[in-house]
């Protein structure tokens, strides 16, 4: 299972899963999946399966963390113990603590936190199955959950990674490529404000390769953004449909 593949790109220039270098994995999103939460979304990004949910604005806990001029945003990125090949301890790892921080910082610029002083907004991301690029998929789902919760936002946040495998810059690495490849560059973007809210990298890239990778990731973000908007629309057309049927039923009952 964990054996390193010999070639990551074949003679035709296709990757192990048959994708072209600048091709995304198939992505599906659904908004409004956790009935208890104020907002939620589910994303399937290749084999990644992730749920994000938002609670708030609500009372700050513990109280001393409250800010007088804006809302406190908290974020917890967590991987389920069964989400990876070898069982992961459910206790938060150092990686998860770091990712929770950078994900929070990637979402914060989009939220009008000043509208809700002395409150807290909780963002939870639960990775049910991981296959590389979970932080990007998690951010994309979390932004949808925030939008679903009705908290005013400057823009959506969308995220996608690019990287380098065998001297080729490619979009959206999956786990095997990430582990065997030579660099991974996750990027998060507020597409209408043209603002990068997350940027990390590990690996080795020249400056030219770095620019190419960032530009490719930004293009990827724009593609995912279209899907994100579609998912929100679907959700609200459904809500609209439900409301209309209800009123119709009520009217019929009255007659």
């Amino acid at each position, binding site marked *: 299972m964990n054996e390193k593949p010999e070639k990551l790109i074949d003679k035709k220039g296709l990757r192990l899963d048959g994708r072209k270098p600048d091709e995304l994995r198939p992505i599906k999103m659904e908004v409004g999946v956790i009935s208890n939460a104020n907002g939620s979304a589910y994303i399937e990004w290749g084999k990644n399966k992730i749920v994000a949910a938002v609670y708030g604005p609500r009372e700050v806990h513990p109280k001393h963390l409250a800010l007088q001029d804006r809302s406190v945003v908290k974020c917890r990125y967590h991987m389920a113990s069964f989400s990876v090949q070898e069982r992961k301890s459910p206790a938060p790892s150092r990686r998860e603590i770091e990712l929770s921080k950078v994900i929070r910082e990637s979402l914060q610029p989009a939220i009008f936190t000043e509208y809700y002083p002395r409150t807290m907004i909780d963002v939870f991301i639960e990775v049910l199955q991981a296959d590389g690029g979970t932080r990007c998929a998690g951010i994309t789902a979390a932004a949808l959950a925030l939008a679903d919760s009705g908290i005013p936002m400057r823009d959506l946040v969308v995220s996608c990674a690019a990287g380098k495998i065998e001297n080729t810059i490619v979009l959206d690495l999956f786990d095997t490529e990430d582990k065997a490849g030579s660099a991974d560059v996750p990027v998060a973007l507020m597409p209408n404000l043209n*603002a990068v809210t997350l940027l990390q990298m590990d690996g*080795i890239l020249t400056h030219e390769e770095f620019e190419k990778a960032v530009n490719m990731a930004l293009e990827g973000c724009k593609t995912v953004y279209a899907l994100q908007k579609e998912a929100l629309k679907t959700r609200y057309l459904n809500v609209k449909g439900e409301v209309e049927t209800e009123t119709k039923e009520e009217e019929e009952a009255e007659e």
Partner: protein
Amino acid sequence: MSVITKVKQKQIEQLIEKGTRLDGRGPLEYRELKIEQGLIERAEGSARVLLGKTEVVVGIKIEMGEPFPDTPNEGVMTVNAELVPFASPSYEPGPPDENSIELARIVDRGIRESKMIDTEKLVIEPGKKVFIVFVDVYVLNYDGNLIDASALAAVSALVNTKMSKYEVEEGEVKIKSGYEQLPLRKHPITVTCAKIGNKLVVDPWVEEEQVMDARISFAIDEDDNICAIQKGGSGYFEPAQVFEAANIAKEKAKELRKKLNW
């Protein structure tokens, strides 16, 4: 952000707009940098970095242990960071928080991804026994830009590291007299840019960190490659600013490298 920092924010932004800073530096100027190596005799390697008033000590300890199952032919390196409670009025004793974990992981990535340590030379018995290099970062005084100071201190300490010579006799490791240098290949330098107003400055000190929108750090090796990046802070960068910061980091890393004796 307190009221005082909001007032100060304006002052800092206006100054940077004019091309200068509250402490008199230019936008692309580092504070005075002092490095002292080998100050902790008990440690296999050590270094103290003073970057302005920011002070960081890194000690290296080397122990024998098991390799990770997925890398049986490589030694192990781990980085830990302690924000010592007296380093800032806002620090408190307790388990590592997200800030110290992030700091440790940024320093770790710079060293790991640049392939600085030749970990294949740290294997005693493949899959069973290897050397583990512990890089422990202690922040003694916080005056901004812990990332660059800690990364410099960690690399300086690794350069300073000597390990005991050993031989393997019938599966037993025997320590011989004498020391040898820890096998190193590269020397990454980490440069952090802060975005204040809409301008970039390097080496933000504490008052600038309190008012900055966001920061971005690049680890650069001697061949000008980028080995690690981390954006932090709850603001954003325009894509063009990211590339501008990358170029600043490349130039500053070159400049810093000239001053160092690595």
